[in-house]
């Protein structure tokens, strides 16, 4: 273990993995309970449109990805509210639209067009100090938001209509959640990759809801599941010399299967 930690790239990948685990663990509770499991893939793919526009106009790609994520979050919020569709349907509408725009933008670029898809498959072993700082800031923002508005988030997630009736600032919570989720996804995709982001946004809450009886404990258990999967996944990936991202995804899925089986046997 100490030998493994003596490498800087392993330390950074562990730190970024744990930070991503905490941040996506918190958000996954809302993603799963609001049945928005599609959002991870949705935002990441929608960012393709912004990246392509960035390439076409020679703008900062990270900034363009963030702006696209923001626009995506606002669009999902607007269509799910005014268009009377579910959030998942709004995501399904916006994602191909943004990707289609991306393809059009790319086709307008003259000469060499770089492979944008590599952007979606981040590598945990290549993370840098700046990535860790960015993830730390995002973890702080999301944690503060959840601590301050935990009651409002619970009510909005449980019953949106009656929350409005009781004066809960539903639109503020809804848009804030969508914006935070979208920004976290875009920031994390570059570092840990689309597959791991999707898994970390869905699996921990799916596991913890099997045994959590309170919203707060579900959030804490989701964080715990993600952090455990990062520690276990990176460790066995290091010793078997396999990529850490897929190792974490396999660990999370195995945890879900084992806990489901344990619950069934106990029942």
């Amino acid at each position: 273990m100490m030998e493994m930690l003596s490498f800087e790239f392993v330390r950074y990948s562990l730190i970024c993995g744990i930070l991503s685990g905490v941040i996506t663990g918190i958000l996954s509770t809302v993603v799963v309970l609001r049945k928005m499991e599609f959002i991870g893939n949705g935002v990441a793919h929608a960012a393709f449109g912004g990246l392509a526009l960035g390439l076409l106009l020679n703008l900062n790609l990270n900034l363009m990805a963030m702006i696209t994520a923001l626009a995506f979050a606002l669009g999902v919020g607007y269509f799910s509210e005014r268009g009377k569709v579910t959030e998942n349907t709004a995501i399904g509408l916006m994602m191909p639209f943004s990707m289609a725009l991306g393809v059009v933008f790319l086709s307008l670029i003259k000469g060499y067009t770089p492979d944008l898809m590599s952007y979606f498959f981040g590598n945990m072993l290549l993370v840098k100090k700046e990535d860790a700082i960015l993830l730390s800031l995002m973890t702080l923002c999301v944690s503060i938001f959840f601590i301050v508005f935990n009651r409002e988030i619970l009510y909005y997630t449980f019953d949106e209509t009656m929350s409005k009736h009781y004066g809960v600032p539903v639109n503020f919570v809804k848009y804030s959640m969508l914006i935070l989720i979208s920004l976290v996804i875009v920031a994390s995709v570059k570092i840990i990759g689309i597959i791991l982001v999707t898994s970390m946004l869905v699996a921990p809450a799916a596991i913890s809801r099997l045994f959590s009886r309170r919203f707060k404990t579900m959030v804490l258990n989701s964080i715990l599941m993600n952090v455990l999967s990062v520690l276990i996944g990176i460790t066995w990936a290091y010793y078997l010399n396999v990529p850490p991202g897929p190792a974490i995804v396999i660990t999370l899925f195995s945890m879900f299967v084992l806990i489901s089986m344990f619950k069934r046997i106990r029942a």
Partner: protein
Amino acid sequence: MVDEENERKEIAIRVEDLSYEVNGLTILKGVSFTLHRGEFIGIIGPNGAGKSTLVKIIVGELRGWEGKVEIFGKIGYVPQISDLDRSFPITVEEVVMMGLYPERGVFRRYRKEDVEKVRRIMDEIGIYDAKNRLIGEISGGEYQRAMLARALVSNPDILILDEPEAGVDEMGKATFYRLLDRLRERRNMAVMMVSHDIGMVFNKCDSVMCLNKTMHCHKDTRSIVPEDLSTIFPQDFDIFIKSMKHFEREHKR
């Protein structure tokens, strides 16, 4: 029409010439009525008659209507039973606590006395023992009583119930309505109930409103005649009358 005695009672809800349209389709037209404190009004009508729309307008969920709606006092609202995620991690007590949110708002946490108040109401409603159970684990009857507790926790002057009998077995319904009788006596609330359980409406309510987009009648329950109902249930009227034991019994007297 409404009892003259009511004129002396305190008004809780006054609706005048209320109309509501969606994309040119009439949902409600020219509905007018007054509900007083202590009075129990039952609203009946076929599916699509605009009963739930009327409730949503009164509780402030719908906008874009025409006419006049005046509310005198605080409303407690028990909505129609919705599709519930049975594994949602929220306890019965937390759901009832939601009713106190308007009194606390965003940055003010619930206090010890809020918890005590919620538990007192839950005890009164008979769901205290279920306080730590998940909302999805309780029976239909208990769920409906939890919704009632949530509506009552802010001490409303007006209680509005939208099909409270839906998804509740006969025993649960009987308990619920007995409870409602007791609460009305104690709290002098105005109660407005939309229901498909017409027998129960005739048994429990002081007045009945027959609604089918327009208001066909609003009468003291004892003065309702079969013809009043035939206007809102023209097609199924014969079958309907046969199945209404309560109604027939009342009218044979």
